[in-house]
């Protein structure tokens, strides 16, 4: 114990630790966070939420107003986290009357760890079903994948590369079929034309597209229409130039490794470990008005052949198998089945903010009581 105290004291006195724990760093970090939230909110008005989040809350350097550099919010929060960890390791006293402070700091650390887990592992997607339809996978809002798949009865075996990997010059193996692609271009947003570029190659495409033109990304990221151009190489076969556009309604059919394979640039799919069948969507109105009072989806959740009825309605999500289904939207049209859209979230760090809040509260309460008791004793002794 004495040895532990000794090295903590030694470390706490060191210049490096003093520098790391300098209050000015904390103050500057908090001011930067304030500025990032302020300017990020302004930026969002013109460029959309996704772009603002990516630019102001990532790890890069942000040029506020186009000239003033600031670190991204994630970077700043990491600096604050390191400060907190160092402070707990070398400075916060190991004393019984400090246990409340320890609990408070552990709670804050839980919040930061929860934020990190959410940033790294949380997945947000959506599922739209018409009444009577069964959903087996959810779809990303704006993240794309280059998918190759074989149909095996009702099941598709999918091999997919995330769109982030589709960088010009990059070679990616399509290992199940012994093939390889060499990416020539990937546009986050593009227009497709059936005209062919002058002297351009003939592209293999299922919709007759001959030309892609890059377009400025949309303010609303979900409106982007990406496109990719690549060479498909297969041993013993002539190379094929392929163009895929995300708005194509049908996949391209290819023969790869002697098999019939489908290829499509599409929003990422996330298979569910169960299926969800929408039985009925109900929109209730306030009496005598057209103002909705509630949206309710009645569905059957089936896993391993066993079904159970579930209900999802506003502010009452379905939580199951680590997934949370929120009632997000709906569609009703004359002569058409009602449709319901669920926002689907998986987040392993979901519980940590609650744990953190309770922990911090408990720590503050404990510390208050620890300080209160001697104060009361002293007061009564006088």
């Amino acid at each position, binding site marked *: 114990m004495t040895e532990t105290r000794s090295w903590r004291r030694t470390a706490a006195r060191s210049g490096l630790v003093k520098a790391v724990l300098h209050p000015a760093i904390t103050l500057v970090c908090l001011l930067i966070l304030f500025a990032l939230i302020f300017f990020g909110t302004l930026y969002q008005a013109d460029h959309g939420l996704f772009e603002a989040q990516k630019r102001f809350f990532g790890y890069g350097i942000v040029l506020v107003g186009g000239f003033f550099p600031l670190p991204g919010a994630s970077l700043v929060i990491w600096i604050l986290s390191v400060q907190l960890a160092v402070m707990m390791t070398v400075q916060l006293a190991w004393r019984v009357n400090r246990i409340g402070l320890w609990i408070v700091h552990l709670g804050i650390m839980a919040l930061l760890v929860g934020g990190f887990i959410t940033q790294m592992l949380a997945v947000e997607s959506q599922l739209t079903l018409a009444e009577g339809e069964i959903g*087996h*996978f959810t779809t990303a809002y704006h993240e794309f994948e280059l998918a190759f798949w074989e149909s095996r009865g*009702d099941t598709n075996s*999918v091999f*997919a*590369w995330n769109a982030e990997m589709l960088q010009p010059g990059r070679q990616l193996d399509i290992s199940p079929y012994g093939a390889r692609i060499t990416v020539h271009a990937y546009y986050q947003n593009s227009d497709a034309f059936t005209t062919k570029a002058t002297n351009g190659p003939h592209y293999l495409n299922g919709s007759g597209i001959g030309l892609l033109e890059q377009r400025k990304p949309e303010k609303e990221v979900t409106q982007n229409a990406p496109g990719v151009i690549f060479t498909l190489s297969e041993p013993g076969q002539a190379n094929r130039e392929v163009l895929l556009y995300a*708005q194509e309604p049908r996949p391209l059919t290819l023969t790869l490794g002697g098999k019939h394979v489908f290829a499509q640039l599409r929003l990422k799919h996330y298979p569910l470990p169960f299926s969800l069948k929408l039985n009925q969507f109900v929109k209730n109105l306030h009496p005598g008005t057209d103002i909705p009072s509630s949206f309710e989806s009645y569905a059957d959740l089936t896993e391993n052949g066993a079904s159970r009825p579930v209900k999802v309605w506003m502010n009452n999500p379905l939580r199951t198998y680590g997934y949370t289904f929120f009632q997000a939207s709906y569609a009703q*049209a*004359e002569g058409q089945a009602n449709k319901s859209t669920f926002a689907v979230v998986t987040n392993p760090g979901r519980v940590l903010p609650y744990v953190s809040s309770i922990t911090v509260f408990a720590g503050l309460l404990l510390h208050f009581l620890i300080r209160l008791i001697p104060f009361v004793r002293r007061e009564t002794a006088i």
Partner: protein
Amino acid sequence: MSRPPFFPENRIFSLKSTFAVAAVLLALLGCEEEKPRVYSEVAFKPLAAAGPMGGMGMPGGTGMPPMAGPPADIKVTWTLPKGWMPKDSANAMRIGSFAAMDANLANSGEIDPNAVDVSVVQLGGTAGGLEANIRRWMGQVGLKASPEEMEAIIKKAPRFKTATGQEGMLIDLTGMLSGDMTQSKTIYGAIVQTEEYTVFVKAMGDFAQVKKQKPQVAAFCKTLRIEGPKA
């Protein structure tokens, strides 16, 4: 007297281990998912689009709205966006006819030769149904859609509310592929359908011009005030 070492040896808090932890954290932050995703999924089977009027009308036809009933006893009014000019039309079915032009040209008093033709039409009942009317519009710009594709179009069509609260659907044919999109005509419009009436807003013109006018058309649709039908 020599100073004690900054980080004593054989401690978890040694300089080496600190750098190692920092390096691992930086690697975690910097790395991207470089592995392909391999998974199985049950193929999605959309329900066939079918309704009481689903098989009626003239799917894919390019003329009049199929199964058009008499105009409903409703009153439709709107607010025009900047740059839109009312114009005469020989089409008696139209209750509104506009040239949607570049706002800068309109301000300068010039006539935009590439102005988009915008029409407002009202019909009684469901006017043949949603699908038949979308097919009719698609036919006017040389597009076709299978039942599955039509299902997807309707599914993806954004919904909006008119100023008087009716729900409408924005139909965007600009993103679909047929012919040379730099030269061909395209349509961006909206359909507001109830049991009593259907109101169509259609902006038709050159691809680039229609794309430019999309926000104005969408905003215009939200200003529609549909009052009635009278008892």
